[in-house]
């Protein structure tokens, strides 16, 4: 298996195993995690975003996930990130993503396409950009508590 492909699959698995601190370590210091509201949105200045977070802010998000008082994760979600159709082009990967989430007796799902832009450094591959384009980014959503 290609190294980039393996990285993308591991990234998804860390989320499903709720290993958020290890997940955060996959992001470079200048990384960006982005879930736009619009299809083909070119910049965060063009429109609102469901999430637009530099790594410094993602660190606060991950910190919160460890806290008992995070009501929207009490009890926590169980998720499966189903990653498929991975196309690798150098240090960039495009894939299809379906996330199934179960919490407090209810199941729901998200679907979208993901772009990973990666950089190889001394510690191996790191994420510069993870962008998730949901098929329904502009639709109403209930609370989204765990990263997609």
């Amino acid at each position, binding site marked *: 298996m290609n190294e980039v492909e393996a990285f993308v699959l591991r990234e998804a698995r860390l989320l499903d195993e709720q290993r958020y601190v290890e997940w955060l370590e996959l992001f470079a210091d200048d990384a960006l995690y982005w*879930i736009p509201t619009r299809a083909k949105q070119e910049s965060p200045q063009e*429109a*609102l975003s469901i999430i637009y977070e530099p790594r410094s802010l993602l660190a606060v998000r991950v*910190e919160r996930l460890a*806290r008992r008082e995070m*009501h929207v994760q009490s009890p926590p979600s169980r998720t499966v990130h189903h990653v498929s159709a991975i196309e690798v082009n150098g240090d960039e990967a495009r894939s299809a993503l379906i996330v199934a989430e179960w919490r407090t007796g209810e199941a729901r799902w998200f679907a979208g396409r993901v772009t990973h832009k990666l950089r190889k450094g001394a510690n191996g591959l790191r994420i510069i950009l993870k962008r998730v384009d949901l098929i329904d980014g502009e639709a109403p959503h209930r*609370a989204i508590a765990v990263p997609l």
Partner: protein
Amino acid sequence: MHRAAYTDPTLFEREQERIFRRAWLYVGHESEVAKPGDHIRTRLGPDEVILARREDGGLSLLHNRCAHRGARVVSEPSGQARQLRCPYHAWSYRLDGSLIGVPLADGYSPDRRLPGLDAVPRVESYRGFIFASHAASGASLFDFLGGLRSAFDNLVDRAPAGTLTRFGGSLRLEYRGNWKMFLENAVDLVHPGFVHKSSVDAARAHPEALTADAVTQQAAQMFLANGMRATQWDDVPLHAFPGGHIYMGGFYKQGIIAAEREDAVFARYRKALVERHGEEKTAAVLSVDRFNNLIWPNISVNARFGVMRIVRPLAVDHTVVDVVCFQLDGAPPEMHELTLQFVNLAASPASLVASDDLEIFERCQRGLATPGNEWIDMSRGVLVDQRQADGATVSRGTSELPMRHQFETWKSWMGL
């Protein structure tokens, strides 16, 4: 208040008829229908409508339902057209709703007068904000907004060019709970310390965020602001106007979220505003430090951040909230970016703050479905509320005055 106000489907139907089919409700902004032919698909209470700018410059609000067989005429969110044509049997209409023509017209009896699209009886605009009412008569929009016209005045006065433009699309939240919970919570100053504790603590654990990039700084300052002590919340004023409208004061006192900032971008913005208003009025406009302005029955306006939330009841236990932004025309583009980033952080379904609010609404709805304590207590602060000579009531931040005021207004509209 009895728990049925949040759970009884027959009361919900009564709300739809007595409140959402009678009150002035926000339907759109002038900048969305700027030119003749511009139209958007929007909602007036439970009903889907088309808001259109006519050739004569006036505004029409039409039911989005063909007069022939009832098909939805406009299905795209917005468009530009001289006429509206139904996709089913091609009945076509002018933007005032009148019928232009139908195919095979000679198939109808000559004395048969075919109808056009039904128009909503009243549409009025206040400083660019367009409202409509299903009621053919009643108070004007100006009188309906009453003392809280000041929320729109302050927002528009903040624009150096004197106008606003809606931008950035929208964020949409959904929860399985009653619509009133969102509006009650928007002016509840006791919940932040408990509901938002996890984001306060997470930000405290990352002090380096306060010196990181602007997006992170703004977020950290916002998360930390929710961590004030109860006595500090009491310093935030609450103001309830006749008619059901309410505002709460601001509580962002530091950094780039403070009312009076000291950075270079804000200095450029302030200079542009002084060119429009002069020094004295500029200082007055910028010193207005309010957080949420609630316009009865279903919108919340934050003038300082150019954001509006429109609460849309779908069922007694199901609500959608649309969050939209306005750019201050003539202000530096960096101000608009900051608005978008603020709204992402504060109002997204994935927000570290709003997601816990949504969770609490769903827990309240589950709890209220259960019999037990039938009556909801909202009496905190009743001894400190003060009635003013102008009919408004003011109180300190931790009073449940807003909830009492909302329910008094609700009872009067509901005829209960």
